[in-house]
């Protein structure tokens, strides 16, 4: 309870306690800015991976920054959502896709980069040739070890849809890079 005043009757006997303001010792509720900052801190690792999966590393930062800016602009509404991270992901995809379609200038590595790990050289370009949803599912499940349910939650689709994107994405990937090893059915 914060500061109180005692309301008295005509005989100077206490009649009621009146709350007249916060106590300096009470915790101050976080401001919107603080809550937004905490949200960015919490959501960013998951969001970053999902957007790298969807857009690739070269466009993920811009898509994420744009989506977070939009989120701050609509923070009153977003902050009350059950799954704000999923909402921000969908905002990033929607806005990023429009921008990509307009500019069509995404970069696609077709030759090994100096810092690239020891993977099949055709893997980056093969990943980019998957559909965005297939690429995201493959990237998050096999690249980042997310469960299919986690991916479904973020993408706003069903787990069975994730399973389909994953299965077909891996099949295309294997075809494009000439890998014959079968995926284990889980």
């Amino acid at each position, binding site marked *: 309870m914060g500061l109180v005043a005692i309301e008295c009757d005509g005989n100077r006997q206490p009649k009621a306690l009146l709350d007249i303001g916060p106590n300096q010792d009470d915790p101050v509720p976080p401001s919107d800015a603080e809550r*937004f900052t905490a949200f*960015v*801190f919490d959501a*960013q690792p998951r969001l*970053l*991976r999902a957007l*790298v*999966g969807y857009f*690739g*590393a070269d466009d993920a*930062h811009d898509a994420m*920054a*744009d989506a*977070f*800016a939009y989120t*701050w602009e609509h923070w009153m509404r977003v902050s009350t959502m059950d799954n704000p991270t999923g909402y921000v992901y969908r905002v990033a995809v929607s806005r990023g896709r429009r*921008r990509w*379609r307009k500019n*069509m*200038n*995404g*970069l*696609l*590595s*077709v*030759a*090994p*980069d*100096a810092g*690239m*790990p*020891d*993977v*099949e050289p*055709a893997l*980056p370009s093969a990943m980019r*040739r998957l*559909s965005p949803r*297939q690429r995201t599912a493959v*990237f998050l499940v*096999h*690249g*980042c*070890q997310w469960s299919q349910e986690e991916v479904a939650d973020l993408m706003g689709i069903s787990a069975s849809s994730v399973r389909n994107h994953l*299965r*077909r994405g*891996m*099949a*295309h990937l*294997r*075809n*494009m*890079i*000439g*890998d*014959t*090893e*079968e*995926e*284990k059915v889980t």
Partner: protein
Amino acid sequence: MTDLEQQLRLYADWEVNRVEPVSADLILAGDPKTRNSPLAHRPLILTASTLFVATIIGVVLVLVLDGTVGIPSVRVSSLVVAKVSRTLPLAKMSSVSTWGPPVSLSAGEGSLWITQGGQGEPPASTTSGGILRLDPQTLSLSAWAAVAAPAGTAAANGSVWVVGFTNNMVSRFDTKTGALLATVTLAPTSGPSPSGPSFSDGKFLANNVAASANAVWVTSGRGYVVEIDPSTNSVVEEYQLSPGSPQQLAVSGNAGWLAAGEQGVALLGPTLPVPDVVPVVVDGRPTFVSAVTVYQGRVWIAGSILQSDGRGRLTYTNRSFVGVIDSSTGTIRESATTNLRFPKLAVTSDGLWVTDGQHVISSVSSESNRRINISPIAMLSEAHAASAVVGSGTYVWIIDGADDVMQRVDPRNGVVTPIRIP
């Protein structure tokens, strides 16, 4: 965990670590770097853009009502489900539904040929699959033959050829009866060339085929190219290119051309001891050749224009090209640029078309064989990356390999008809 999954983990870590994190403080401060349009300017931008759009719409409406201009009839019609034919070479139609999504598509002998299943689709991918025949006029669908792990297909001279992705088999069927005419086995010792391929795991990974009356060419994801003599159903020659380079094949008479990605165009023919691979340079820049076809006696190619990012790495630009090459030397003779990613070519009875299968389809024309014009015709409904685009009759047909719906595009009027393959 498979080797591919381990590679994906390494690749994902590398990609994620390349991305600079976003600072919440910068967003709260309204830093314009965090947004294309600063927040403070949005209302003004919205107002200005709204007024601009309203003005344009008003002017167009006035012109349309006045009859000065017409609106192109670009629209997507309602979903059509292909009719399952009752005259099936296969006894049980139910087996079709187990083959999975379409893999590849070709046109020939008055039909469209669609392969289903295979290519690593768990759990029974290496054994199940087949080829369907679609009548482009009536959309009547027939299950034509069962083929294990089918990939590319091609039809010519009364035969339809199907390559098996993981079983080193090329199957030849009769286009009238569906009867199996021959199987050709691709093996390390199948070709007489001493430079022929060697298979460490015994798998050729055939992915594409092109056929004419005189020659059949097969490519593999491992960069091998095989020529088959259709008169004897035997391997004539085997060649090796860089793994991953074969993209698309075209054949005419005894000659063949291969869109070989970053390597350029490979000339294939009985007079060549090995394929002559010619790099393609457009506007002084290297290219990734993704499509090749023969139209009006000339060999047309299409692909993406690449650039160096200054760190020794080639990257895609937002430009692509369509060009004509000299059929005997591979030298590019003329070209025009456009902005499609991974462009693919399709020939119909009305002309030559280029599309990425996702966004736009454009006509390609050549004035007096000197200048190529590319004119956008229609916007496509947003689909996954097209896995195959072919022309048949007056239509362009597109499959994306991700779902069971193919798109039929009438490039004359821009009408797109989605067709579900049951």
